[in-house]
């Protein structure tokens, strides 16, 4: 599973999904003022419907912002925000949030062995991404993950791997997977 995943992701990047521009985190911090009300200046979400983005892989952040900008992914707020950003600003703000470090801690008495195995090869048992183009899920609000998985299931959000995985999940299974990651404690720190 893991090998297959990485191969597919490698293919995506070669196909030019990400703009692969050098990003300047200092410039990105200025752009992040547009993001902080929902995502926090450090990338720790301030509202339940926004994901934590501090310490996310830069490639993932850039790919999502470009997807919002091109219309490949839609969200009533993010579509508006991304439309106003240049490719350079997208690289910069992705670099700013990626310059943070996210770490995760499972709740007391919870064993990593019980993590949903469909998810762990890309998102990790503790929700810290182990693939360049996969987001961290640690500490994400249940409603956020549920909403995304349902969007993949309905085809409103598309991804080679996630669309297929989500298609096979019931509402109850989506809820359980989401609860697993929501219950992980997430810490985000800025590297000096």
């Amino acid at each position, binding site marked *: 599973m893991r090998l297959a995943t990485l191969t597919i992701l490698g293919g995506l990047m070669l196909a030019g999904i990400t703009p692969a521009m050098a990003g300047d985190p200092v410039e990105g911090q200025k752009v992040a003022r547009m993001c902080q*009300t929902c995502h926090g200046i450090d990338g720790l979400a301030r509202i339940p419907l926004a994901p934590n983005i501090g310490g996310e892989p830069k490639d993932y952040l850039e790919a999502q912002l470009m997807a919002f900008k091109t219309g490949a992914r839609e*969200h*009533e707020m993010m*579509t*508006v925000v991304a439309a106003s950003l240049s490719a350079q600003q997208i690289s910069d703000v992705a670099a700013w949030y990626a310059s943070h470090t996210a770490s995760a801690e499972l709740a007391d008495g919870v064993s990593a062995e019980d993590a949903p195995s469909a998810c762990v090869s890309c998102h990790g048992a503790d929700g810290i991404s182990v693939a360049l183009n996969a987001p961290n899920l640690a500490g994400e609000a249940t409603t956020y993950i549920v909403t995304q998985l349902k969007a993949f299931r*309905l085809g409103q959000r598309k991804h080679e791997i996630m669309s*297929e995985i989500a298609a*096979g999940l019931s509402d109850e299974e989506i*809820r359980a*997977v989401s609860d697993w990651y929501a219950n992980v404690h997430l810490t985000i720190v800025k590297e000096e």
Partner: protein
Amino acid sequence: MTIKALIPSVVLGAVFAVPAFAQENMDKLSKMQRTDATFTYVEQSGERADALKAIVPHIKVPDGFEVSLYAVVPDARSMAVAPQGTVTFVGTRKDKVWSVVDRDRDRIADEVKDFAPSVTFDIPNGPCFSPDGFLFIAERNRVLTFPAAEFFFEGPDPAVGEVVAQGKLIPAEEESFNHTARVCRVGPDGKLYISLGQPHNVQPVEKHEMYDKIGIGGIIRMNTDGSGREVYTRGIRNSVGHDFNPANGELWFTDNQVDGMGDDIPPGELNRQTSAGQHFGFPWTNGGVDIPAYKEVARPEGVEFVEPQVNMDAHAADLGMRFYTKGSFPEKYHGGIFSAQHGSWNRTTPVGARVMFTTLDEEGNAAGTEVFADGWLNGETGEYRGRPMDIAFLPDGSMLVSDDFAGAIWRISYKSGMSQ
């Protein structure tokens, strides 16, 4: 691909135990049987409470009023004070409804715990009460009712009924996005009124007719058993606050307006509805501003758009609102509307995070709007200390302001000795 192929059966047992019981719990509760659910309590003293108390001096209110921290309530959204005033139920945009109790009536909550922990909620933003004590909770795509919730909330297994079953409020394929925080009220006609935000910034042209028919981008009403559903209000974008004028039974509501047209348009709205089925202009207009995407789209025939009563600051995000029907505030506030501005999220210079007051004239029209409370926005850094979301009133006439950013409920009271 099935989940069993992905996850070993041992793991299935551990990871999926809770949701498997969720529906079972609903079945048990509707038959008044016990589950083994337990409460989550929110600590009301210590570091978190102290940090919130430090915000209080920043909040500015008119002379004679004072502000205090009423309760620590994570993600606090729309509120419903129970008829007897024992407990306030508070919705969230996550999966909890909180019960907030002030047993010793010192106007500081002494217990906050989750309501009906045996029920799995999904964005239970909107609680509201009927006068006879039924609690309704409007979720993203379901409506539940809890008879005598004021008395049964102390146990983890309150009786529950389904007003609108899961997936029947809106089509499931329309539920994936934002704008799914519902608000409900029981009107003077005894019907349940529920706002349904439309999920887009501006809905795609091919969807507006379907939405209009279902009431998405509107307010629907139904009998409290879920029968007789109809669209009561048409042509709104995303209303997250409505209330009835106690003087004449008319519905008033806030509306949040389109993003991406600039910092200063379109204005936020406060609207007055005088009869069933009125259309408030969206997606063609927003507070007198034409929406470009609908310039060439035919307007509904024979329909006159109702203009807003108040144009609020653009992007300030007017959400919860309530008429003042109590006695302890000075005369000028009686019969007027208090509304919460959540604050802008992408305006160049942030605006909002305040409580507004709108006074009405003898004809029942808005006759002036002013800032009642502000200071949750740090003007120097543009950062929020808190974001007011909804307004409610305790039986003593003091105001509660929910805040889903700080995770608090603030109380604003008129100093005793100065009233009446």
